[in-house]
């Protein structure tokens, strides 16, 4: 287990476990709660095939600590820089070509929810609670949470959640398509771990990268372009597989 900023990093069976660690609420002391470069090197060196984002103890994360945030706001330029770094970190998760699962229990508020929304899949406990409380303090979510929420939930749902700032439970979160799985409270981590293992264990990194890329293409490319790209990647893998089989036959 290694500590970097506000989080702990560990690798088990090729699965990276990134734990937000500032219990009990796992408040984030800065938006970039773990260094992107640190992550990059660990993922590459340890040939990580998937990542679980979770919180230490009973909660995922309560988000930014308010006093901390207002203190940071005293220096506007510094705050901008910090937020940009935080955004870059969340973009890094979203565009990672390995699956990232957020394992969520207890409180998942503000920046905590923004982190969870940058993951590719969310496994939630029955007691998980979600909110964007920013508007209660005259703020809005600052790390891309509005955009990411609106990609999943409907426009009225998004507006409601951001402007009202109310806490919603996991049932409502499911209706808003931000809770993909709901599992018993003490099984969130194990469920996420075995799901990720099932998805990646016998897959080569290349197959994993290509599936991730094909999925991301649906967001950036037109349908025919995305399909062409999918066929191209298929073809590359198929020709490698054909070579392999051919060699086996020769031996």
């Amino acid at each position, binding site marked *: 287990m290694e500590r970097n900023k506000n989080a702990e990093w560990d690798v088990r069976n090729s699965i990276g476990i990134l734990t937000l660690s500032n219990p009990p609420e796992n408040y984030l002391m800065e938006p970039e709660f773990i260094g992107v470069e640190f992550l990059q090197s660990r993922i590459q060196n340890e040939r990580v095939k998937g990542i679980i984002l979770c919180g230490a103890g009973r909660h995922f994360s309560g988000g930014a600590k308010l006093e901390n945030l207002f203190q940071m706001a005293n220096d506007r330029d510094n705050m901008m820089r910090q937020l940009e770094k935080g955004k870059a970190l969340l973009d890094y998760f979203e565009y990672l070509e390995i699956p990232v699962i957020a394992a969520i229990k207890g409180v998942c508020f503000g920046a905590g929810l923004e982190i969870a929304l940058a993951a590719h899949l969310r496994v939630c406990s029955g007691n998980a609670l979600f909110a964007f409380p920013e508007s209660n303090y005259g703020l809005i979510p600052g790390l891309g949470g509005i955009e990411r929420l609106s990609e999943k939930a409907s426009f009225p749902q998004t507006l409601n959640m951001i402007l009202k700032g109310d806490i919603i439970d996991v049932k409502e979160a499911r209706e808003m398509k931000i809770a993909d799985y709901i599992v018993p409270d003490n099984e969130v981590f194990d469920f996420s771990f075995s799901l990720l293992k099932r998805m990646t264990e016998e897959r080569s990194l290349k197959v994993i990268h290509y599936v991730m890329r094909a999925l991301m293409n649906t967001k950036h490319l037109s349908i025919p372009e995305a*399909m062409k790209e*999918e066929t191209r990647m298929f073809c590359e893998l198929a020709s490698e*597989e054909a070579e392999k089989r051919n060699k086996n036959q020769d031996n």
Partner: protein
Amino acid sequence: MLAKYKTISFELVHGIGHLILDQPPSNKMTIDFFSEFHHILDGLHSVENLKAIVISGRGRHFSAGADLDQLLSLVRHESRKDAGGEMVDLPSFLEKNYKTFLSLEALNIPVIAAIRGVCLGSGFELALFCHFRFCGEDALFGLPESTYNLIPGIGGTSRVSILSGKPKALELVLHGNTFSAEDALGFNLVDKIFPKKQVVEMAISFARKISTSYKKEKAKLYLNKL
């Protein structure tokens, strides 16, 4: 148009074109199948009074998907790579496949997949490009490509992502597991489950019912007419 094909039977009854994958028991999609399928699709515009298309499989299954050995050997012989091993040219066969599936989807008449038994890999991809998917309670779905070190090659990933959302698509495509009709309904990948003996019949009568005033953009609204 209604020529005799080796791998497909195409019947026209009261304006409903019934296309049957006809290589039982598994209705594997061979290279011959794909070229006959392109041929049929290319010729559809010349079929008079064509009101709808229903696609099903001969016998107990829809299709077990592509003939992998055939496909791998074709890719091996036809693909061109540059010095770095990057693919420069797609084999025209593969490029044609996804274009044909897109043109199936682009048809302005209802296109319904009637699925019984196994519906895997490119068989499932074919179904995913139809406007509606009806299936029997015994149907079994899956995109098992990743278990062969491949990924779906004819738009499976993007279609599942559009219909079921990215998280589910990620799971189904990477894991490559098969899943039941009921699961498929829950994932929004089929529209309706019927007793297996009724699937084709229900698809044809549904096709008749909706073909007169069909507007593709509103396809899902027609399901209320079932």
